[in-house]
């Protein structure tokens, strides 16, 4: 089984940075044969539709490369904002923090072929 990758987003993302992140991440997944990606957004106090789409995109790319993505550490205010914006991020697994995220990834990757029913869309 390959490794997990941890991405911590701390600064406000703009276009160029986001594209760079997608490049770096996809190459890293390939190089390390990573099976899981954890995106930690606990430092983000504000999220807009751009970031929302970026996360959904990264998740999609990772899936194609046979890696699962888990989004961790979303703050309550951010969750409410995304919901109000109508962004429910379908297809993205979520967990409260990095530790839970890792547990989730291990569980999901052990159930080969079947996905956890209640913590995904």
């Amino acid at each position, binding site marked *: 089984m390959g490794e997990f990758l941890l991405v911590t987003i701390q600064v406000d993302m703009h276009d160029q940075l986001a594209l760079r992140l997608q490049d770096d991440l996809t190459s890293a997944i390939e190089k390390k044969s990573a099976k899981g990606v954890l995106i930690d957004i606990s430092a983000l106090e504000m999220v807009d539709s751009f970031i929302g789409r970026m996360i959904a995109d990264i998740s999609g790319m990772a899936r194609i490369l046979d890696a699962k993505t888990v989004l961790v550490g979303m703050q309550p205010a951010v969750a409410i904002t995304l919901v109000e914006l109508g962004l*429910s991020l379908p297809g993205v697994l979520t967990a409260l923090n990095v530790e839970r995220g890792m547990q989730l990834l291990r569980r999901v990757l052990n159930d080969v072929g079947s996905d956890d029913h209640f913590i995904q869309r």
Partner: protein
Amino acid sequence: MSAKNSISVIIQKRRAEIQNEWVRLLTAAVASSKGGISPKDLAQQAEQFLAVLDTALQSQNLNVGAREWDGVRAFLEDLSRQRVLAGFASDETATFIFSLKRPIFAALREESGNDAAQLAEATWRASDLLDQLGLHTIKTFQKAREDVISRQQQELLELSTPVVKLWDGILALPMIGTLDSARTQIVMESLLQKIVDTESQIAIIDITGVPTVDTLVAQHLLKTVTALRLMGADCIISGVRPQIAQTIVHLGVDLEGVTTKANLADALALALKRTGVTFTKL
């Protein structure tokens, strides 16, 4: 003395006797009213009012809304607010002003002597002035009452959305009453924060106490469920009554795979199973 300044003159000349007569009338009125206030406080309020009234009258401007009357209006607003809290009705509060008419008219009659025209004019001005002040008192009283009501509504809102911990990692939110946008906002914020604080995985929203569920309420519930999912927690809705089940189907509301249970017990059993907890009888 002219009709215009007659009120000012008699207040200055006969303040003591007007005050005494006024306090006598006020005490009699309070005795038969719903609220309570001591004779001493009553006398003190009467004295203070006459003092600010005296000052305002010296401006020769009988328009109660003018700047010179700010002190009088502020005094009456304060008085109104106190009366609201002491349990007085609005008419009982306005009596404070209106009962001042009798002693003032009596004093005017004595001062005017035989000049009927002047007496009529002075009485009219005094009556008009006191009417304006009385109306201002009532207006303030109403507003103070409304402020109390809206503050209570706010408190009720906060009280009626408690988040309780049922078990390690399992929170419950019993909802009582109607679910509107304002309430949903508060519910989401407190529930999500509690999830973070307790690191819980499952939240059970019990809607036994929600009388009706229409498309708007369903939307609010779904928003809460989605927000919970984004944070990595799971949601179970319990307390779905038969009528509500029918309404949801008739309205064609899509619950998007949210697990629902008829009662809190079933929801708790499911939540425990999901978190890997089993109970055995000893």
